């Protein structure tokens, strides 16, 4: 039975993913045996660096895909989004679970994390993010569990969950809105450190909006890649709906972002083309203007690749936005600087690789991508498509 029929590149990629996971696990062991300093460059002036910039701010934003798609598909009941709610929940769940895993490495004293649940700190954005993220991960597990439970044949809990399913979905949307915006509040507290091009009283609104915007963007990437690798027919109606939603969101966000910069009178900083301004424009052009231009091309509705590319650019834009605000342009001391260590990034990359592996296994096991196989592949045995990557 163990005849490996996968192409060579797929086997190599699969090995690479596992290699990254193993490397990240080894790095984690070193971190707990010898302290954070061995594997990370975070220092006294820049205590967060890549870990918070990417793993907290960016990862949670992209994990927002679960709540935006659940809201669009289940609450608003928009037809174009319904077929991808399951995939969105899976992706969201995996983003959050890997976030929790990296957080345990990144926190200085993770064995004390339970203290958060025995504290009352309503003035702390971190407290709100922590509680809401835990609660929302629970919601995601509940939303996703019927798929697993049905597969296992446990129908009673599935019926119980389905009976109050909308309560769970709506609670998830409310929790997400809170902690996505609280990530902005997190940076709002640092008026002296966050660059004026990013520090705005509207930060919570921007963070919520960009998390919502990341939803269709992540799904465009997911659907394009998944149908490509699983050799399924892409749902053009779904991609179209995602593209239209993304166009509106990117346009609104871009207008608000530029309007805010002008309104706060820091437009001259943006036009100075100094270090911060260049990163600002990179974020605006790559993450907002370019995808918007792509999305506004006349035949976009027929172009799967172009839609996927627009989604990928928006994802990169969100990543740039969070990293710019929290890491790249943050100034504390003139004599201290921060540059992420390879091992620091490796922890994140290992978690991402683990996420892809888990995704591939779950997509094979559960009815998540139910699109019909590509016509020309129809002659290949039915097991082949879903196994392309694994």
């Amino acid at each position, binding site marked *: 039975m163990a005849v490996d029929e996968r192409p060579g590149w797929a086997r190599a990629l699969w090995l690479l993913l596992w290699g990254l996971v193993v490397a990240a696990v080894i790095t984690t062991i070193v971190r707990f045996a010898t*302290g954070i300093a061995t594997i990370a460059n975070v220092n006294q002036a820049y205590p967060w660096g890549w870990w918070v910039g990417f793993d907290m701010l960016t990862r949670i934003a992209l994990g927002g895909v679960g709540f935006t798609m659940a809201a669009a598909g289940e609450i608003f009941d928009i037809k174009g989004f319904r077929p991808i709610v399951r995939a969105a929940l899976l992706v969201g769940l995996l983003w959050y679970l890997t976030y929790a895993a990296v957080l345990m490495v990144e926190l*200085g004293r993770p064995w*004390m994390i339970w203290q958060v649940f025995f504290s009352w700190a309503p003035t702390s954005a971190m407290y709100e993010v922590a509680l809401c993220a835990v609660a929302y991960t629970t919601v995601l597990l509940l939303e996703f569990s019927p798929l697993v439970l049905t597969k296992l044949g446990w129908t009673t809990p599935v019926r119980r969950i389905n009976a109050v399913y*909308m309560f769970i979905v*709506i609670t998830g949307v409310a929790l997400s809105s809170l902690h996505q915006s609280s990530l902005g509040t997190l940076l709002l507290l640092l008026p002296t450190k966050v660059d004026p091009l990013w520090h705005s009283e509207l930060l919570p609104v921007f963070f919520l909006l960009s998390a919502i915007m990341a939803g269709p963007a992540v799904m465009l990437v997911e659907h394009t890649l998944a149908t490509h690798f699983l050799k399924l027919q892409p749902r053009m109606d779904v991609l179209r709906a995602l593209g239209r939603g993304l166009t509106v969101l990117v346009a609104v966000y871009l207008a608000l972002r530029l309007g805010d910069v002008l309104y706060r009178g820091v437009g001259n900083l943006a036009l100075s083309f100094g270090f911060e301004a260049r990163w600002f424009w990179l974020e605006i052009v790559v993450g907002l203007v370019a995808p918007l231009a792509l999305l506004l091309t006349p035949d976009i509705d027929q172009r799967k690749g172009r839609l996927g590319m627009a989604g990928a650019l928006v994802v990169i834009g969100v990543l740039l936005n969070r990293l710019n605000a929290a890491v790249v342009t943050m100034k504390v001391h003139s004599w201290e600087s921060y540059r992420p260590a390879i091992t620091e990034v490796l922890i994140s990359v290992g978690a991402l690789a683990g996420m892809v592996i888990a995704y591939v296994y779950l997509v094979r096991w559960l009815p998540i991508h139910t699109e019909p196989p590509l016509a020309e592949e129809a002659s290949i045995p039915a097991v082949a498509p879903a196994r392309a990557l694994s």
Partner: protein
Amino acid sequence: MALKAMIQDNTRCIGCRACMVACKAWNDLPGDTGSFFAGPGYQNPRDLDPHNYTVITFTYTDEGTKGRPDWVFGRLMCMHCLEPACASACPTTALRKTPDGPVVFDSWRCIGCRYCMQACPFVVPKFDYDRVVPAIHKCTFCADRIQAGRDPACAQVCPTGAITFGDREDMVQEARNRIATSPGTYVPHIYGLNEVGGTSVLHLSSVPFERLGYAANLPDKAPPTLTVKLLHFTPKIFTTVWVTMAVIAMVVRRRFRFWAHDEHSDEHSGDEHGSR
């Protein structure tokens, strides 16, 4: 106890660093092997760290004392803000402001998120990254000594009277008097009177504070006023979003009982291609 404060009169400081030694002694901090010239002049160490809760800074300036070029001193330590950003940021309330002035912390409750380090406009809390069981470290204002009715260790040992400790009201008055009675000695600015909403450490200087490397252009508004107000709305936002979404679900489905999963709308059921 009334709110306490400390005057750090940099014009009276001679850079002897007895305060740094007393701080180490009272807080049982280990000695370091550093460089004698870690910072400008004889400044050592360069900055606060987990073993040094206070550091005297050395700055050479052309208009030092009475217009002559000279070394001028400054002091790094926790400012014990009246509305501390660090305490507002702490998710486990391990950091808190006590009514008599000190911002104290319970390092046992710390989860190591380092938001306090990020939130502090004076970059004071320090973390020992090189330890397997790390913790946050910073000046405690000798809260235990204040409780016992004594001055903080640094104030006790200062041989030139550069450090004065007492009720904040009296200290503010004293600082104003010093500036008023010898205007040539001081720049007319009490650093910490209004910075980030006021602090419990008030600095005086003969040269502008930014020349000493003090954080300049700090807002008069305490940073937590930006965020606490917003976070206060949390339950309201949650309820509003929840109710709005429920109403939308009802309207979209055209029925009051919206809470069950619509099986019919699930395009997946009966179509199980991708699964095996």
